[in-house]
């Protein structure tokens, strides 16, 4: 069943349709959430929060916007809220382990280690990006959304997206070069 039909059915309170909608979109929402908050536990919370919001606000969703644009905007905002809380309340959440489950762990230990290092390096670089740049980088370069859709989700111009993307990529590239000692 198409997302559109599922949305219409969910709106009328059909829990089964909503459940399928969740199953369909959860992986992507989790990716966005994880990449913003960089913690598996927080990402789970964010996913839950996002879909509860979706469920409560389905009546406000206008069908002339793409459902995923609406959904991802909710996801980005929820993840951002969580990230801000974590930053401001670093003492409250101290000791919480961040962990990530890759889709398929590499059986080759050397390659697995390399992947881990790459991941840590880029996550570290992402952590130092200002919020907007980080979001643009996540949506465009990691989630592979178009510049136009990224702009719609973040409610800004395409030019603005491109400019943030330029600085984000430059920062990440410089971090990589520095780490490799080139």
């Amino acid at each position, binding site marked *: 069943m198409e997302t559109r039909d599922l949305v219409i059915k969910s709106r009328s309170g059909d*829990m089964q349709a*909503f*459940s399928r909608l*969740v*199953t369909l979109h*959860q*992986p992507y929402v*989790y*990716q966005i959430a*994880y*990449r913003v908050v960089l913690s*598996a*536990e927080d*990402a*789970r*919370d964010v*996913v*839950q*929060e996002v*879909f*509860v*919001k*979706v*469920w*409560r606000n389905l009546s406000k969703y206008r069908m002339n916007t793409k459902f995923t644009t609406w959904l991802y905007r909710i996801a980005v905002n929820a993840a951002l*809220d969580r990230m*801000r*809380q974590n930053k*401001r*309340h670093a003492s*409250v*959440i101290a*000791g*919480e382990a961040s962990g*990530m*489950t*890759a*889709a398929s762990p590499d059986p080759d230990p050397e390659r697995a280690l390399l*992947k881990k290092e*790459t*991941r840590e*390096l*880029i996550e570290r670089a992402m952590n130092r990006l200002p919020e907007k740049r980080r979001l643009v980088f996540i949506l465009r*370069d*990691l989630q*592979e959304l178009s510049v136009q859709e990224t702009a719609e989700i973040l409610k800004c111009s395409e030019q603005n997206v*491109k400019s943030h993307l*330029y600085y984000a*990529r*430059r920062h*990440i*590239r410089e971090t*990589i*070069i520095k780490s490799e000692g*080139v």
Partner: protein
Amino acid sequence: MRCKTIEKWLHWYGEGELSAEQKATVDAHVQSCESCRSLLVHIGRARDLIGDFRAEAPVPRDPEALAGDVVRAARQSREPGFVARGLFSLGRPGVRLALGGALVFILGSFFMEEIHIMNQISGLENKMKTETRLPQSAFVRCWVSAERIAGMLNGDSERLLEQARTGRLRFVPMARYMFEFQHMPAGDRMRVLRACRDVRKTVPDVMTRLDQKYIEIQ
């Protein structure tokens, strides 16, 4: 053409964002400029690593369980509001406390300690209400949390600990767990977080016990 302009263009090289003319200019420039050539190599290297990073898409452990939790949370998202609104609409704290006690009794956890905690939390609710001017939904959640803490100190603790062990429930940080504030707007949440610190001060014995339990299961 100045290197600065070329550098900007290099970032979009190979992404279909440059005009044919721009691309030709870049190609020609790179042939003769050592530093821009090396930059192009670095950009390519960064792009590869970002590609590797992207390919390692994060997936939740036990996605079915997460989906189940999500749907359950959505289904229940109105229920606590209904129960607690009834309590809060009754006005005077004394009445609320009595009803709170009754509810605890119904839940099968009618112990002096819990009454004591409920009392403290009820006082805290009032304090928060006047000091933070939080919307009703915040108190609804405080109430639900208070109920859970009461449950945890009683027979429910084993089940909750089991959930914590299997990762279905988050124990740390307790302050955040206590107030299921994730459905609130950001501003309210900040105020709740601040109030959470007060909870730690108000009911330190409870928090200490919960923290100990958390250490035990680690």
